[in-house]
């Protein structure tokens, strides 16, 4: 790759400030979904696990690589599904509020 450690350090510092700025004011009802959503995002460690797997030599490294890819997949897939379910409830709540004025329209109970 093109990066050396100093370039990555620059990126790291800027990303840290960005991380603070990007979520400024979160209503408390969204705290748990946001935690879950960012939990899914660090599941991107799967990319690192794939790199490890691609260069694995010998039984120990292969086993470690398999475990890493497996665990990272749990993180990324589980994180996304859990977040989606949380937000799904949120949607049905919002929709129920939205459709209330013109009664007769039922919110879809999708699952």
């Amino acid at each position, binding site marked *: *790759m*093109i*990066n050396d*450690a100093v370039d*990555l350090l620059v*990126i*790291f510092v800027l*990303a*840290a*400030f*960005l*991380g*603070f700025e*990007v*979520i400024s004011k*979160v*209503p*408390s009802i*969204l*705290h*748990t979904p946001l*935690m*879950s*959503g*960012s*939990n*899914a*995002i*660090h599941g991107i*460690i799967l*990319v*690192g*696990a*794939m790199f*490890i*797997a*691609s260069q*694995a030599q010998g039984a120990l490294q*292969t086993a*470690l690589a*398999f*475990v890493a*890819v*497996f*665990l*990272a*997949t*749990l*993180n*990324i*897939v*589980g*994180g*996304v599904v*859990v977040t*989606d379910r*949380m*937000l799904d*409830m*949120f949607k049905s709540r919002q929709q129920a509020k939205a459709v209330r004025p013109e009664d007769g329209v039922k919110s879809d109970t999708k699952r």
Partner: protein
Amino acid sequence: MTAAIHLSANLLTVIYLLSAVCFILALKALSSPRTARYGNLVGVAGMVVAVLVTFLVQAPGHDWLIGSAMGLGALVAVPAARRVPMTAMPQMVAIFNGVGGAAAAVISVAEYLHDLPLGVPATKGVPVVFALVVGCVSFAGSTLAFAKLQELMTGRPVMYPGQQVVNAIVGLSILALGILVVVTPHLLVITLLGVAALALGAGIVLPVGGADTPVLISLLNSFTGLAVAADGFVLDNVILVIAGTLVGASGALLTKMMSDAMGRSLPKILLGGFGTAPEGTAALTAGEERTVRSGDATDIATLLAYSRKVMIVPGYGLAVAQAQHVAVELARALEARGVEVAYAIHPVAGRMPGHMNVLLAEADAPYEELEEMEQANDEFPSTDVALVVGANDVVNPAARDDPGSPIYGMPILNVDSAANVVFLKRSMRPGFSGVDNALLYDSKTTLLFGDAKESLTKLLAAVKSS
């Protein structure tokens, strides 16, 4: 796939940059109710792009390894995440966060072993140590947090004499082992380092009480982000650095927001023991004789049945007793008698923000009867009875009136402005904060002791027969 697709390093970096932008947009969208769902989708798009392009550039001969491990992971994760009841969501987040931390730790070890025959330079050794230690702390901590919330172990703070000393010794040995790993690379040393880091993770989580666990999970989530970023340095991979750092930083801020919303400070949560003993600071009017009035179910049912307006205030006790269905039934029985009923939802009542909304929605409480804090506080002055079911801290006037109280400043539901207050409580034990509640001794307050579900069932029967 017979041959790896060859992409230039520059092009790969540009594609990673694209998915990094997706993650930034996702976090931004997730912090507003209107755009939250769209946020999750954008995040998924970023992940699919990064994972797909990485899969395509991998050397041939290893796709079976990657493919089978991913397949197995998806096979386990999807049903687990789908089947778990909504009430168990916090522990699911904990465990998925923990495995992410474990993956980050394993990756750093694998890369270290890969480079070991040629020697590991310090520029690589330092991030390896960081990723391993933080990843292991996150894994052990998240697993214990899962066990606490899942009630596989006690949810109470676990403390023993000299705990901080033991943690400090473990911390120092991690420092020493970490230096050794960088200076004299060896498989045994890095293994010991991993074990010590697991012990530290457990040591950090043990003294934290069950009620504070969501804040703790948020902190560990931030830790996993940092471990992922460290792996980015280990593997010279830009997307891991960006995504990991974003989660690390935003997670730290979110942790602060969560602890603020609960009226707690992070150091206090980590030192733990909160809730084991009432704190001296709020020992209001010490020595003064105070009596509580406890009523029986029939009296309270009569009070409820002949009210014009009743506000039900659910809390942790309702969640523990799984009393949401009975609570909704009671509301229906009262409504059948012409009583106006609504639920006042404190944003952090229960074990996670939004917990009460989830429970009551599950029990089919009408959405329009679920009132958020501001709305509910406007209505308490015109309410005849505030029925507090297993809540304490979120209705404690000390948070509003007593600057010396540990929970001072936490927004509360002003149930004390209702004409009558009924508490359904298991005992006189204070809430998680360990702070006494003066409202319990107020002359307009009646207490009904017992499990929330049993008390509500009794009230329901009494209302129906009155």
